[in-house]
């Protein structure tokens, strides 16, 4: 005769425990759980992972992707996609470098021009998506190729860097320096994440972004300017991609037309890992930033354990499938 075994937790209790641990879909607790697992696994894999030097280096090298993911998060939260951020990163970085090196503009002005370029292209993308009603996937696939083409034209397909002995300083207003022993790029990245999350959580615009992603008709019914809001999301995405381009140029002291290669999909993966579903409506910028950081950790630990960087894609794919599975899961019980 079978005997009933009393398990410590059963059915509903398990779900309650799960909710307590990782929250509902969209909760920042889910990417945090991924981060904790990634940190533990990386520490086990390499003893040098949890060293101050490595963590600083990890944050600096991940800062570009995190900034890209923050912009992408606004677009995905509204149920759209921006495939062109990596080309914008390269193109804006090349523009800033070209203005600085070839046109002799001051670093801060080159930086500003690149940001304005990102915002203008973002607004054009937004206008085509909302006014002409071309799906964002198609329009941004266009900017992906178009901006890459423009980036290649700046210096005949070659990289741009200050020539040896040149008086040109490639810091764009000192953004590549350090403060308190940490790269300024990390502070910039943190500033972007905090500002974006504050907008999303505490301003009506942030609420409207999530509302439009959740139910666009509901937004329209209460008078939210949905089209302008979508344009704004692409402006934010374009501007932050341009910022990441200048950041990467300042960090590398050079910029290639293909510097952003592969980063669009990585940024989108970070956003999904961060708990923002593909249809939008819920999730956080902090979550997207953590998702991007997890991808950065995967890259970092592959180097630390001496694996070929070719393995990166397989690891990212595995984590992304896991993220997709958790996003698919329904809400836990109340």
């Amino acid at each position, binding site marked *: 005769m079978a005997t009933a075994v009393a398990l410590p937790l059963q059915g509903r209790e398990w779900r309650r425990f799960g909710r307590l641990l990782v929250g*509902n879909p*969209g909760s920042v607790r889910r990417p945090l759980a991924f981060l904790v697992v990634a940190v533990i696994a990386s520490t086990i894999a390499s003893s040098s992972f949890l060293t101050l030097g490595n963590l600083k280096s990890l944050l600096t090298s991940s800062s570009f992707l995190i900034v890209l993911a923050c912009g992408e998060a606004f677009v995905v939260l509204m149920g759209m996609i921006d495939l062109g951020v990596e080309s914008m990163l390269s193109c804006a970085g090349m523009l800033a470098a070209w203005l600085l090196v070839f046109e002799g503009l001051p670093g801060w002005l080159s930086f500003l021009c690149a940001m304005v370029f990102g915002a203008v292209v973002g607004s054009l993308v937004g206008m085509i998506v909302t006014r002409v009603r071309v799906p964002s996937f198609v329009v941004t696939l266009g900017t992906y190729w178009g901006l890459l083409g423009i980036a290649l034209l700046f210096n005949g397909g070659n990289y741009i860097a200050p020539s040896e002995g040149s008086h040109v300083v490639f810091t764009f207003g000192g953004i590549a320096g350090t403060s308190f022993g940490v790269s300024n790029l990390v502070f910039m990245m943190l500033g972007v994440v905090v500002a974006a999350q504050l907008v999303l959580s*505490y*301003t*009506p615009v942030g*609420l*409207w972004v*999530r*509302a439009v*992603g*959740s*139910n666009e*008709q*509901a*937004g*329209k*019914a*209460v*008078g*939210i300017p949905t089209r302008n809001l979508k344009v704004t999301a692409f402006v934010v995405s374009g501007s932050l991609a341009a910022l990441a381009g200048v950041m990467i140029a300042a960090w590398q002291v050079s910029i290639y037309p293909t510097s952003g290669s592969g980063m669009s999909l990585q940024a989108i993966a970070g956003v999904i890992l961060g708990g923002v579903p593909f249809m939008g*409506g*819920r999730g956080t910028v902090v979550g997207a930033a953590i998702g991007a950081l997890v991808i950065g950790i995967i890259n970092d630990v592959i180097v630390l354990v001496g694996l070929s960087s070719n393995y990166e894609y397989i690891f990212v794919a595995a984590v992304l499938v896991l993220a997709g599975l958790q996003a698919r899961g329904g*809400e836990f019980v*109340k």
Partner: protein
Amino acid sequence: MSEQAQTTQIQVPASGGTPTGKGLPSEALSGGAPGATGQRDVPLLSVRGVSKYFGPVTAVDNVDLDIYPQEVLGLIGDNGAGKSTFLSLLTGYNRADQGSFLYKGTPVTITSPRESRNKLRIEMIYQQLQLARDLTVWENLFLGEELRLWGFVMDRRTMRKQAASVLERLHSKVRPNDLLGSLSGGEQQVVAIGRAVLFERDIILMDEPTAAISAAKVEDLLALVRELKALGKSVILVSHRLEDILAVADRVAVLVLGKLHCVVPNKGLSVASLVHLMFGGSTEAVADEQLLAAARWQARHGAEGG
């Protein structure tokens, strides 16, 4: 027959008295039927000769209608009769091609949903509830009209507090921080209605509110409609469930192929008589039915009184 004469009102006394005006052509353009609920001075909103065309199709054709304070007006008609289009003209979602609107006797225009809500204090509750399932209850309640600090920061604390107060007024167990997607259809209806109460709207338009909820919850919703009336609101209720209309409406307006066929007080009406009117049937037969019902009522109460 002229356009005006096609709109018919039937007058039946609210209580006792001799029923009059059997199938009379409308004298006024109002299309209303004064006398049903007692407070009939100035209409809250008057619609005058309003038409809406979609290309060659006339969706709403020269409609005149008055909406009075604190009344429930049932709006019925067959599919394609123009009910939803008519409501969309009141909400500003569509603009009327012809005609005018009077708000408390003053001519007004309705050009946008925002204007309709803020200027005319009209709230629309759609058949497919226009709520965001990924937002919390309080976020849905205040969406588009958030309370702010310093002009740009949401006053989340006050909004949560006010949301809790409104939900309590509507006798709901829903909590402000609940995720909308976790609520039942009936609870979501409460949230949609809560917006109207929260922002002190005067007129609430409800398009098929019982279509998406279980039969067991219909009575709860009708109780909410009565509650809204008790709170001083006017409700225009569109429903294919004619028994719901009969249960709560003070008057019933019937649209047939975009035209206002008639407006009848909800006295002695039956589902059969409403179906008769919905398909363009004569108001005289309905008036006969109403007269009969009024006579029965009078006889019963007379006998009780005697």
